[in-house]
């Protein structure tokens, strides 16, 4: 309950700040971004995040899954190594390099974001599938489940909480990285932040920064709830039992 109060307050403060700054109209000789532009930039930002995230999920889960299979397991150290190291590259550096390599614009930004946000998804899918108890898989196999049945009825349900956690992390990272992607002409809230910084008008910076923060907080909360829904009940009981045992 307390979590929701804090969350609600935080979102209210961030939205309030945005509305307040927008209502100023102008600061000195500079006009702040009009309401329509802020709204449009927010939607654009969501669009970038959603596109990149959806594609990252579509690519990341199958890739993370395939490298757990016996025939592809030899790739996994390399791939998981890349996923781990890739995430240590600062977003600003990553987007900067992407701009140089891919050029400017929406598509270039989305491709860069996919490359960056797919990493936690691959890593968590791999870890989730690998963490399934071998005894459980052996029992499933010994009782005559086909490979597909083992994947669909045993491996995926058991790995789902870990995969969902990966999606959640990557989405939050994505919101922040998308703001940086404004730098390479993707549009979105990053563009407002940059224009504010260029003319050193803090009200404009806040017009871009506060909605970005609000988006990250809101999406994290929503996906946290989704993570909870998709966790099988038996695993929640397990977690609770382990927690009580401590």
């Amino acid at each position, binding site marked *: 309950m307390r979590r929701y109060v804090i969350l609600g307050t935080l979102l209210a403060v961030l939205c309030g700040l945005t509305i307040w700054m927008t209502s100023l109209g102008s600061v000195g000789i500079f006009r702040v971004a009009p309401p329509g532009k802020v709204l449009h930039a927010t939607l654009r930002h969501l669009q970038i995040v959603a596109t990149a995230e959806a594609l990252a999920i579509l690519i990341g889960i199958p890739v993370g899954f395939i490298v757990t299979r016996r025939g592809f397991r030899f790739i996994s150290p390399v791939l998981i190594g890349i996923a781990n190291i890739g995430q240590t590259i600062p977003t600003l550096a990553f987007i900067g390099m992407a701009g140089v390599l891919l050029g400017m614009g929406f598509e270039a930004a989305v491709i860069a974001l996919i490359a960056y946000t797919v990493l936690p998804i691959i890593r968590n899918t791999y870890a989730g599938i690998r963490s399934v108890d071998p005894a459980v898989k052996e029992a*499933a196999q010994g*009782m005559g489940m086909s490979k597909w049945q083992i994947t669909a009825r045993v491996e995926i349900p058991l790995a789902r909480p870990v995969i969902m956690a990966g999606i959640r992390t990557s989405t939050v990272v994505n919101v922040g990285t998308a703001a940086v992607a404004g730098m390479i002409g993707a549009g979105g809230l990053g563009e407002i932040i940059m224009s504010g910084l260029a003319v050193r008008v803090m009200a404009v910076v806040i017009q871009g920064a506060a909605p970005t923060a609000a988006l990250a907080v809101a999406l994290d909360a929503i996906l946290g709830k989704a993570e909870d829904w998709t966790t099988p009940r038996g695993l929640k009981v397990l977690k609770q039992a382990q927690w009580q045992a401590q």
Partner: protein
Amino acid sequence: MDYDPEGRSDQEETLIKLENVSKTYTDGTEAVKDLAMEISEGEFCVFLGPSGCGKTTSMKMINRLIPLTSGKISIDGVDTMKLDTNELRRGIGYAIQNIGLFPHQTVEENICTVPRLLKWPKPKQHARAQELLHLVGMDPDIFLRRYPSELSGGQQQRVGVARCLGADPPILLMDEPFGAIDPITRGRLQDEFLKIQAKIKKTIAFVTHDINEAIKMGDTIALMREGVLAQYADPAELLRAPKDEFVRDFIGADRVLKGLRLLRAKNVMKKPPFLVNVGEDPMQVKRRMEEAGLRWSMLVESGDHFLGWITCEDLDPSRLIRDVITPPSVTATPDTPINEALSLMLSSAIGTLAILDDDKRLVGVLSFDVIRDVLSEDVGLEPPCEKVST
């Protein structure tokens, strides 16, 4: 001397047949070499041996969890290679040491794994889950909807056994199913499983490295060593006539003591040599006992109803025999295994054990002398004649 007849004598038809089965792993290890054996219908066959002897590999080749390198395994005359792997496995119950219950499924869903794969109707699945949970001694009303993490280790193991019986397969493969639990629970589960097996009469291939478990559970024991069958015999035969040095070492120096478990009181008890009837004259009894050199004697009423013990010192003319009875502290039944009987005798002061039937009638006695005769192996562990001929 008679032998324990329970389930060991009936010769059924061969159900599982292994012919020249070999397994060589890709790294060159020969896990199983040219194994040939037959498991009869309803037989509880224990694969026994030290780690790395190929016992688990042999068992897993039966349901093709491990593919054979060469040879042939047939079930009921059908070559397993000619069957679809998943169909084959669904027809064979499978239980493992680490249980491998599905943590995200309820006890009911776990038990119904194979019935669901076989697309049984829902009500039939539910009824089956209830029946099986009942069979393994758990209350369906309490446990059907629980998750594995809400169960104790012993309860999980019971559910594992119930699950492997899910679709009522004629064959069960069990890989150290009672290995990972504490000795007390293990003993209880073993007893319960033997009772269940007496009812359901499955053909079982059971892997263990514990010789005591093998002797207790198995109708036959396949003792393996480095991928080769060292000896395949019933427990008594294995204990009485170890084929070679390896078998002898594996069984251990206490093989004669281990063999006691296979005998029951009724097989070795003697007729009571000296009985006192409750109405007899005390002084006369005392004289008879002194002549026979006995300190203790058994007291009966109306021929064979056992009352207790009397001792010379307590007998005197002024008291009736009925008033000087020492009630028996321990007694045994004809079905008490000799190892337990021996332990009872060691714990009582008299050192002679009265064997009573269900109506408390005295049917025999066991003394250290009788058991010593049993202990000398050529007398005691001689199998009955028909066993020698088979």
